[in-house]
C-alpha cells in the first residue's frame, strides 16, 4: 500500500473541503473493507485519505411518517437489526443479511455499500474498470463467468456489486450528496451509470462529493423482498440477486418494482417482470412467469449463460418472499 496523507474531519462540509476535485487523488474512508483491499492491491493509490469516522452527523437511522432516513455511515449490522427496518422494509433487512460475514457487516456502511467498486477480476488485477489490454477488451473472449448478462454490449462488462442498491431502487429511495456547491438529491437509480470510457466512473458522484444520507419513502404497506444466490453460505459475492417491491390490494398486485443485481454494470430494473406481475394474484406460477419475463432479454457472454437461470430463480423467489407466500429459508 502506498503511503498517504490522512485527515479526520468532524463535519461533512469539512470532508468535502479536504477532497480533491479530480479522481484518483483522494478517497473517502468509511468501513474500509473495499478501499483498503484495493489500496493493498495497488488498484487505488490515493495521495490522501479523508476519514469519515469523526463525522457523527452521518450516523443514525430515523424512521418516521416521512419514511426512513439512513445516515451514510449506518452500518449494515445496524440496518439489519433495526426494528422498523425489519417490520416495514423487510427487503432491506434481507438484502444485508448475507453481505460478507459479521465482521464485514459490523463495519460496512450504507454509503460504502453503494460506492464499492466492482469485483471484476480484470479490474482488480490492474486492467482498468473496462478491462482492456493494449486497447483490446479482455472480457468477451476471456473468463467472463461472473460478468454481466444484461447491458453488456460494451465497453463495460463488470457487474454492479452493491447488495443494497437493487432494493433501494425498488423502494424508490433517493440519496443526498454534499459537494462544494451544497447538497443535491438524486434517485438511487440515477446514481448508477454505465461508464463509456476509462475516464468515467460507474457512480454519478463527483470526486469531491460525499453521500450524506439515503431517504426511503414511507412503506405505506408496500411489501418488499430480496433473494440472492451465492456459491457459499457466507463470505461470498452473489451470482445473481433480485429485489421486489409490491403494492398490493389483498393478493392482487397493483404495482410492482423488480430490480436485479449482479447481472449488469448497473442495478437492472426489469420492466418485463413488472409487467408480468401487474394486476395478477400472486402465486407460484405468477412468480415463475415474472422470473421468466425478467430473464427473457438476457444476452449472456461466452461463459455465463448459467446466470440467466439464476436471475430467473432469484426473481421468482424474491416475488414469493415479498408477497409473504414463503418465509426466508423456505424458498
Amino acid at each position, binding site marked *: *500500500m*502506498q*503511503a*498517504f*496523507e*490522512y*485527515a*479526520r*474531519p*468532524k463535519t461533512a462540509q*469539512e470532508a468535502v473541503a*479536504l477532497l480533491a476535485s479530480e479522481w484518483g487523488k483522494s478517497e473517502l*474512508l468509511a*468501513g*474500509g*473493507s473495499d478501499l*483498503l*483491499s484495493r*489500496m*493493498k492491491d495497488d488498484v487505488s493509490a490515493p495521495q*490522501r*485519505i479523508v*476519514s469519515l*469516522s*469523526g463525522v457523527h452527523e452521518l450516523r443514525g437511522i430515523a424512521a418516521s411518517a416521512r419514511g426512513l432516513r439512513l445516515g451514510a455511515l449506518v452500518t449494515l*449490522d445496524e440496518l439489519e437489526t433495526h426494528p422498523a427496518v425489519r417490520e416495514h422494509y423487510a427487503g432491506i433487512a434481507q438484502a444485508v443479511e448475507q453481505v*460478507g*460475514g*459479521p*465482521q*464485514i457487516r*459490523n*463495519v460496512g456502511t450504507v454509503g460504502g455499500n453503494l460506492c464499492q467498486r466492482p469485483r471484476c477480476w480484470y479490474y482488480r488485477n490492474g486492467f482498468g474498470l473496462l478491462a482492456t489490454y493494449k486497447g483490446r477488451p479482455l472480457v468477451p473472449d476471456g473468463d467472463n463467468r461472473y460478468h454481466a448478462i444484461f447491458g453488456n454490449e460494451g465497453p463495460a462488462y463488470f457487474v454492479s456489486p452493491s447488495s443494497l442498491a437493487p432494493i433501494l431502487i425498488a423502494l424508490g429511495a433517493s440519496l443526498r450528496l454534499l459537494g462544494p456547491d451544497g447538497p443535491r438529491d438524486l434517485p438511487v437509480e440515477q446514481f448508477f451509470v454505465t461508464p463509456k470510457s476509462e475516464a468515467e466512473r460507474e457512480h454519478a458522484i463527483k470526486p469531491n462529493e460525499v453521500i450524506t444520507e439515503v431517504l426511503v419513502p414511507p412503506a405505506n404497506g408496500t411489501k418488499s423482498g430480496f433473494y440472492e444466490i451465492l456459491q457459499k*453460505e*457466507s*463470505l461470498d459475492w452473489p451470482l445473481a440477486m433480485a429485489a421486489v417491491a409490491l403494492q398490493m390490494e389483498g393478493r392482487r398486485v397493483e404495482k410492482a418494482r423488480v430490480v436485479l443485481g449482479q447481472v449488469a454494470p448497473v442495478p437492472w430494473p426489469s420492466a418485463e417482470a413488472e409487467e408480468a406481475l401487474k394486476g395478477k394474484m400472486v402465486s407460484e406460477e405468477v412468480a415463475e412467469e415474472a422470473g421468466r419475463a425478467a430473464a427473457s432479454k438476457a444476452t449472456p457472454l461466452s461463459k455465463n449463460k448459467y446466470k440467466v437461470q439464476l436471475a430467473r430463480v432469484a426473481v421468482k423467489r424474491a416475488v414469493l418472499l415479498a408477497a409473504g407466500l414463503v418465509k426466508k429459508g423456505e424458498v
Partner: protein
Amino acid sequence: MRGKKPKDAAQKGGNGAVTRRDFLRGASLAVSTGLLAADGAAVASPPESSAAAVVGPGKVPVTLRVNGQVHRLELEPRVTLLDALRNDLDTTGSKRVCDRGTCGACTMIVDGKAVYSCSLLAIEAEGRNITTIEGLMKDGRLSPVMQAFIDNDAQQCGFCTPGFVMAATALLAERRHLTPEEVNRGLGGNICRCGTYHGLRLAALEAAKRMKA
C-alpha cells in the same frame, strides 16, 4: 497460546540471544508500556487541534487502548491495526493470513464488535476499546470460549483459532441463546482451512450453554 513474554534482555536467560521478533521490532518500537488509567481520557478524545488537520504520510502519534492498556505509538497512517499490534506491540496472537478481509484470522473485538483488524487502519482505532486473543484470559484462567474450544477439539493446525475464538466471543457477548444456524452465521466470517467446523460449532454452542449457567 503463548505465556507471558520476557520484557527485557536480563529475563531472557542471560545468553544475550536476540530473537527474530526482537530484531524486527527494534526499529519501529515506540513507547509501548502500559500506562496509568489516567491516560484513558486522552485516548477517548484525540486532541481537538488534530481533528481536521492533514497528517502523514510519515509517522504520526497514534494512541491505542489494547486489552485495557494504553500504548503510544508512532505509525504511518497506512499501517493497519493488525500490523501495528503484531509488529509494534509484539501482540502476535491475531494472525495475518489473507490481509484482505476474507478469512477472519485477524479478528479482534473493537468496541464490542468483531472486526477484521487487517482492514482497519490503526489510526482509525484511536479512542476505541480493542480486545485481542491476549486479552481474554482472566487471572491466568482460560475464558469459557477458549475452554470450550479445547474440550471440543475445535482446532487442528490452530492458525485460524485466535480469529475463531474472537468471533465466537463477540457472538456470545451479544446473545447466549443460539441455534446451530445462528452459530453458523455468527462464525461465517471466519475460515478454517483444516475444516474443523464441526468442532467449532460444538465449541460455540457449549460455551453458550456454560455461560448461561
